[in-house]
């Protein structure tokens, strides 16, 4: 009985949108797995009140997402080192575990046992607070990353906007740690980080805005649902090619990935704002930047590459196999494959980011600011207005 209820179709889907063409894509979306309702009904079967069951449920997806984020970082670090090595015709890490897969873990453990040095002339409180302020918003942004119809921590109404708000907290932490170090390199690095972050935040927000306009909602789940229906053809990348490129460039700049790693350009600024950091505080910066990279890649896949959607609509596949989409087994399979799809798309982008690192030379600070303000910002504005105009002209094709 419990098993049967665990696979029961989930909540009635997403608010039926008022509007002209809103219903055409919603009709084909399958509800997917809802682990929360099945877990809650299991607990309520044991005699708990619904509120208590909800409270017991709450930490589970959070811990799960946190663990997968950290594992994602370890995998990304390993991939980065292996792919970088391959690009440069080296072998890369190979002794810790098979093919060196345990190397990132070893690095992390090493940093954990390193002494924490606070320079004598630094401001101790701000020096400690800086890395914390960098890491917390990045982790918190995983709240809105969906891996399936109901497979996310919380489908909050502001969704993607929450991520934009949280990502603008990060430069405060960078500036704080740069200033608190009382080191000239750190200060310049922190200032650069802040300038870079604010320059690329606006094009980023504007390209998200165009996607939001097409899905009539800020919720990440609704954004993905709007991209279902015709498989790969209904993904936003075809309707927002310019937005996709702007978003990806800005995401790389926000993550301070090469070619935009000016705040920590080692030839100029030693290590930028993290020059004075050692041990776990340095590891926190490291963790934050890689979590941010994986997060950005996941959000690109959510916003432009159909999230958990398959290249071929799952309804067609299920229909071809003579199965109903709402059948329990099919739901479990599509749910798990949806997670795989999301992660696969994200890691494809991570792979491109790593390759880009060894392909493109670092830009100068004036080129960086010019690119942000004089190129990406006008283009993003035009893209937004063009999306609005196209939505007026072809409401059905642009989300009703």
């Amino acid at each position, binding site marked *: 009985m419990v098993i049967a209820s665990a696979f029961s179709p989930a909540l009635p889907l997403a608010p039926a949108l*008022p509007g002209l063409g*809103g219903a055409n894509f919603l009709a084909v979306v399958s509800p997917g797995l809802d682990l929360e309702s099945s877990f809650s009904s299991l607990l309520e079967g044991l005699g708990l009140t619904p509120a208590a069951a909800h409270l017991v449920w*709450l930490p589970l997806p*959070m811990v799960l997402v946190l663990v997968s984020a950290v594992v994602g970082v370890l995998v990304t670090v390993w991939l980065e080192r292996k792919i970088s090595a391959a690009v440069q015709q080296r072998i890369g890490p190979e002794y810790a575990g098979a093919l060196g897969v345990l190397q990132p873990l070893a690095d992390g453990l090493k940093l*954990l*046992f*390193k*002494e*924490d*040095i*606070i*320079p*004598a*002339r*630094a401001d101790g409180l701000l020096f400690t607070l800086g890395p*914390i302020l960098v*890491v917390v918003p990045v*982790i*918190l942004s995983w*709240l809105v990353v969906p891996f399936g119809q109901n497979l996310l*921590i*919380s489908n*909050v*109404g502001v969704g993607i906007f929450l991520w934009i708000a949280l990502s*603008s907290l990060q430069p405060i932490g960078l500036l704080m740690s740069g*200033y608190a*170090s*009382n*080191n000239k*390199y750190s200060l310049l690095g922190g*200032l650069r980080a802040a*300038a870079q972050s*604010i320059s690329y*935040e*606006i094009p980023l927000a*504007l390209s998200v*805005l*165009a996607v*939001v*306009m097409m899905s*009539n*909602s800020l919720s990440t789940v609704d954004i993905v649902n709007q991209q279902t229906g015709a498989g790969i053809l209904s993904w936003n990348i075809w309707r927002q090619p310019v937005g996709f490129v702007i978003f990806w460039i800005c995401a790389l700049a926000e993550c301070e990935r090469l070619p935009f790693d000016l705040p920590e350009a080692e030839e100029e600024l*030693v290590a930028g704002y993290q020059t004075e950091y050692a041990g*776990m*505080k340095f590891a*926190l910066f490291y963790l934050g930047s890689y979590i941010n990279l994986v997060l950005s890649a996941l959000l690109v896949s959510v916003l432009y590459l159909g999230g958990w959607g398959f290249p071929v609509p799952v309804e067609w596949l299920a229909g071809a196999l003579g199965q109903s989409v709402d059948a329990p087994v099919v739901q479990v399979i599509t749910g798990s494959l949806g997670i795989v799809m999301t992660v696969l798309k994200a890691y494809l982008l991570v792979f491109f980011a790593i390759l880009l690192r060894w392909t493109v030379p670092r830009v100068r*600070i*004036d080129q960086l*600011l*010019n690119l942000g*303000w004089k190129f990406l*910002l*006008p283009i993003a*504005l035009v893209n*937004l*207005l063009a999306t*609005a*105009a196209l939505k007026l002209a072809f*409401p059905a094709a642009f*989300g009703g």
Partner: protein
Amino acid sequence: MFVLDGYDAFLGFLLIAAAVPVLALVTNKLVAPKSRTGERDLTYESGMEPIGGAWIQFNIRYYMFALVFVIFDVETVFLYPWAVAFHRLGLLAFIEALVFITILVVALAYAWRKGALEWS
């Protein structure tokens, strides 16, 4: 308990996310060797003894960028509700947003012309 649906998870995740760096730093404090103070506490300046501090007055060139950023960030925030409700508002909202954005583009062109977006 919560007026806004789903935000109890936000509060919970905030606590968990904040616990990560705190736990990491506390563990580090417990297992790492204690400091033997001395020259290692000096600020790093390429192997030299640091000349002066970094807490000085100097010309922050990003100042103008920060000002332009504030304008455009507020603009973007204003545009979010417009974009979400756009499918219900139609042509008039499009023209209004066009006027709004045009004003800001004129401001951008002015800042550009005045050299506020120049690095040097």
